[in-house]
């Protein structure tokens, strides 16, 4: 029997399939074709039907496991346990998942329960000598490494925006499957869900990010940042200084203690480009900066820098973009 490559299907808060999982599935399809591995998706949720059906447009076979506990309990530990037990039962060789917060929780749990190694934050995945090879960006982007597993089993987590999601030529089938094993780990109850006004799509997945730094000067300044993001169809990002000053929420922070992003366009307003921020955004496709200081560190790695007042330039840019979109 051929070994199998499993893809974990992550859910959106609405119960659909997370975008990252469509990318992971696409990457896994390429690896499985080269490696001659069977390809299987797994969705574990209180109501897995919608996400499983969506995942089946990318993969030939998807297991849908109904796990009622995730409806009102923190999902990572529960899904991780169920997945580890299914792995034990069915014996796949590899598991691919997303490298976002949910994927990290899951990969950490599955690794601890199976003893499998993890290659994380892949920026590319290939297949060499019977094993996956994973390219990772380390030391804040100063070095790229290629790694593999020492054994025949392992978990790979893949960063957002590494591959473009592409549906399979022929859709696959969804198989409702019983969960395996017991929930022996303690469950953590969700006592309340608090919606945060303005909470947007995760910035890790955004194709365009408009980011504000210390130069934006205050919470009001972020209105312009938001307007530019809206005009470009992108998301708002921020530096640690802007977040620590309380001008914008932590979930928008990019950099060493925030998120690592790889958008097509990174438009930086009043961002100096200190190393702690640079590590979070330097692999962006195109970097455009607006800064008063032509000698700011960001001038060294931006593709284009406009030397000037960010509010004057930003407002002029808004006019041009709005005129363009008609």
């Amino acid at each position: 029997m051929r070994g199998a490559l499993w893809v974990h299907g992550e859910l959106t808060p609405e119960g659909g399939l997370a975008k990252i999982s469509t990318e992971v599935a696409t990457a896994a399809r390429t690896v499985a074709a080269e490696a001659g591995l069977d390809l299987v998706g797994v969705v574990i949720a209180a109501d897995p039907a919608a996400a499983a059906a969506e995942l089946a447009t990318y993969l030939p076979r998807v297991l849908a496991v109904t796990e009622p506990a995730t409806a009102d309990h923190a999902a990572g530990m529960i899904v991780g346990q169920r997945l580890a037990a299914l792995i034990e039962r069915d014996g796949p060789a590899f598991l691919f998942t997303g490298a976002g917060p949910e994927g990290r929780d899951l990969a950490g749990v599955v690794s601890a329960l199976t003893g499998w190694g993890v290659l994380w934050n892949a920026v590319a995945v290939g297949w060499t000598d019977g094993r996956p090879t994973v390219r990772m960006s380390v030391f804040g982007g100063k070095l790229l490494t290629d790694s593999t597993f020492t054994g025949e089993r392992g978990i790979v987590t893949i960063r957002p925006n590494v591959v473009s999601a592409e549906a399979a030529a022929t859709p696959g089938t969804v198989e409702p499957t019983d969960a395996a094993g017991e929930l022996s780990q303690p469950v953590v109850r969700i006592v309340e869900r608090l919606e945060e006004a303005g909470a947007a799509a995760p910035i890790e997945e955004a194709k365009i990010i408009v980011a504000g730094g210390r130069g934006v000067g205050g919470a009001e300044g972020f209105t312009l940042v938001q307007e530019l993001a809206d005009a470009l169809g992108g998301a708002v990002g921020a530096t640690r200084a802007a977040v620590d000053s309380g001008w914008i929420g932590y979930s928008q922070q990019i950099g060493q203690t925030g998120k690592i992003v790889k958008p097509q366009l990174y438009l930086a307003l009043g961002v100096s480009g200190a190393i702690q921020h640079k590590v979070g955004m330097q692999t962006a496709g195109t970097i455009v900066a607006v800064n008063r200081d032509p000698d700011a560190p960001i001038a060294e790695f931006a593709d284009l820098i406009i030397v000037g007042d960010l509010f004057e330039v930003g407002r002029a840019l808004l006019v041009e973009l709005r005129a363009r979109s008609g």
Partner: protein
Amino acid sequence: MRIVVLVKPVPDPASAGERLGPDMRLDRAATPAVVNANDEYALEAALKLVEQHGGEVTLLSMAPSTATDTMRKALAMGATRGVLVTDPALEGSDLVSTVTVLAAALKSLEYDLVLAGADTSDGGGGLVAPGVAARLGLPYLSYAARIAPDPDAGTVRVHRIAPTGFEVLEAPMPSLVVCTQALGEPRYPSLKGIMAARSKEVTTRSIADLGLADDAVGGAAVTTRVTGTEKPPARGATKVVRGAPDEAAREVVAFLAERRII
């Protein structure tokens, strides 16, 4: 309350010298070590909790023996004591070994909460904390923006950062909480704190002390290995635009259109 904070010494991200040695492992001699920035947020959260509820904070690291220096820096912020698991056999440890060792070390400590940073600036995996929780069977509460223990009830509530807001989680203690920067900026060590840190207790433990065999962890038990490295491609030259805002804006739009971004 008794709180254990997981602390990792990492190569200073502000230094330019981070590199792998010929053995494809981190060349620790090449750069000075600092406390991982996200771990400082976890430590700050722990210090605030014991200020509020009483108790003590123990730092736990797995690192080379030189890490006592880095640990003193964290002790200067106000932690009570440090425990350093260090052993030549741990050289070359991967994620699986790290989780095994930290879980074993925690078994020998008493605590109500284990706090960890969201990830590290060198590895950046963010996988150790969920692994340790699963190994020890601890309730796992990740990505905390707020931590509110109720010592009388023996429970802890955490605001977990979720895609559309927060999930308010509740679990019995002891449990493991992953901290984020939203918990508040770490304090600077005071001169008094720095002086006091010199005489604080730092215990070192070998893997034999933890009841682990030499070949169960470290280089002898790796599950992954680095096969090659490459310098990332350099970005092209920077185009500099000066001039009136509306002209500059038109240039940006033309530049983005040329690159098919808009």
